[in-house]
């Protein structure tokens, strides 16, 4: 059955890989939001060639919170109903820069947490009225526990994850599924400076995991799955010990 899919932060490597699978399945309608128009247009053409029934685009810097309301209104005007929402935008800040600069810290929290909560607030009300569909957001394993090497990013993702827990609880009775996606290490432009070892996966593997979790109406998913175990262990370490580790 044909689906209407909204993807916010559509130029992200993970979002792009996910959109491709939905396009290739044939018959789906996509609405893409991102800030880089050239790249957005490129993605739009790509998805059309791959078999999407229709692709709409909207160029927006997602830190313009006042535009979120009009954006979501436009999405529902154009598509009528929305079956799946995927929110994927984000940045990976330099922790040392953040530690030295309050402005930078607040800006990163805006991009990685506040903008998402703003979007979700508008979306949740529409989805609650609609009484079906899935809201999926890419959070991160980094949000499960704060570590000295990236606790601003971690704090933002943690905020998103907790917000999503509450939203899941609220929207359950309306039949709307709320999915928190927690990827581990993914080889994307965001992580291009990192040396890649065994734990790293390609965006396509994450994309397949996201779609599977959406289809199964899961509430939370670690991708790849083994991160559930790693994070269980990390969360279980007593704070007395954890605070001494160089993580």
């Amino acid at each position, binding site marked *: 059955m044909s689906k209407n899919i909204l993807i916010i932060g559509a130029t992200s490597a993970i979002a792009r890989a996910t959109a491709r699978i939905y396009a*290739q399945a044939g018959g789906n309608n996509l609405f893409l939001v991102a800030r880089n128009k*050239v790249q957005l247009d*490129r993605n739009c*053409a*790509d998805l059309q*060639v791959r078999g999407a029934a229709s692709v709409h685009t909207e160029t927006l810097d997602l830190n313009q919170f006042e535009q979120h309301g009009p954006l979501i209104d436009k999405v529902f005007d154009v598509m009528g109903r929305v079956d799946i929402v995927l929110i994927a935008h984000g940045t990976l800040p330099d922790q040392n820069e953040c530690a030295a600069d309050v402005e930078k810290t607040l800006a990163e929290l805006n991009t990685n947490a506040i903008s998402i909560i703003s979007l979700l607030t508008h979306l949740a009300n529409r989805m609650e009225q609609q009484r079906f569909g899935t809201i999926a957001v890419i959070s991160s394993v980094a949000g499960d526990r704060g570590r000295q090497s990236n606790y601003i990013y971690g704090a933002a993702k943690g905020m998103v994850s907790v917000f999503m827990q509450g939203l899941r609880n609220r929207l359950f009775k309306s039949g709307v599924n709320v999915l928190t996606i927690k990827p581990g290490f993914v080889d994307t432009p965001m992580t291009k*400076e990192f040396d890649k070892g065994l734990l790293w996966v390609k965006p396509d593997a994450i994309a397949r995991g996201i779609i599977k979790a959406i289809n199964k109406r899961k509430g939370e998913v670690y991708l790849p799955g083994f991160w559930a175990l790693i994070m269980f262990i990390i969360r279980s370490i007593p704070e007395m010990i954890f605070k001494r580790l160089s993580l």
Partner: protein
Amino acid sequence: MSNQLISGWGRYPVVDAEIAVPARFENIDLTALNSIARGMGRSYGDSALATQIISTQQLDNLIAFNGQSGELRCAGGTTLEEILKVFVPRGWFLSVTPGTKFVSVGGAIASDVHGKNHHKIGSFCDHVTSIELLIGSGEMVSCSPQQNSDLFRATCGGMGLTGIIVSATIKLLPIQSTTIRQQTLKAANLKEVFQLFEANRSATYSVAWIDCLASGNALGRSLLYLGEHDESGTLDMQSGHSKSIPFDMPTTLLNRFTIQAFNTLYYHKVCETVSQQQVHYEPYFYPLDSIHHWNRLYGRRGFLQYQFVLPKTAGLEGMTKILQRISASKKGSFLAVLKELGAQNKNLLSFPIEGYTLALDFKWEPDLLQLLNELDQIVLEYGGRIYLTKDARMSEATFKQSYPSWEQFMEIRHKYGATEHFNSLQSERLGL
């Protein structure tokens, strides 16, 4: 950007390179670089190696498709695998495909790759209608057989030495099903297989596997595979799991006896002199793609693939001489593929000339280079040449003697500001 040890598919040689993986081509700053483009790294030697490498892996978007003409415009990093995944279910196939689908469109153009149908429809670039190239000055230039045709003729088969292929338009081939009607013919020796190639010139696809270790009367003993796209059947993609070679194999596993045993078994697997099968295109075109990292079979030190072509006139005599030399060297080749090539095209450095081409793998050994130098001499003597995309060691003199258009190529490189910006270990070795 990160530094990393990297090699071609043959895993020889290895270089420490700085690799940029731009997410969009606007991010490529060429002015500061002396680098080479790299697609999927399926060239065997050093043509995609340099100390600064620009990977096209993320430049893989499809741009437009014309369902009437079958023309697909896509970014240079798009893989043939991806094209098949999207278009086979809609009834389109690649006009020309090499023996692996894990190559990029940019790489296929830069090597002007050939398939099992070269004798019928030429090479990959004969089905390319236009190219967008990022040249040394940072400008984008379009080229085609009609527009900036000098640049087109140098870029097709030009081993990345004219610029970065940002996008290209290629013509796909309509198919009715994913089934290939395969016919297998047994040839007792080289003479017989040449005769079979001649007699089956009208077949769409043809390729032979030679047992290089057979000698005497059986020299050149082979199986010839002919193929036609079937009109009936479905457009289903093959499902099935791929295997992977997880680590370098101890090289002692691959020796003269194991290879001889393998080749003998392989040859006798087919009993009748002529047999028919219906097979999916996957095993027909890409028999090795289901085993990831099969290059690890040759161990840590890697291997070299030697592929040459001899003109028709030299045919039987030259090929016999080379096979005898290989057979006498007792250096095994796991894969030896013989193919008839059709007429040469206008691209300056494209490999195919009308004749027969043979490709063999050799495990890396200290005395291997000497054997290959000897083979080079026989190839030159008969007016043949060596395939650049497989090469890691031929000399500048051998190259310049066998690719007479190299000077014209250099002029075009200069004209479009490529000389200071695009260089590989191979181009430096060959004096390009």
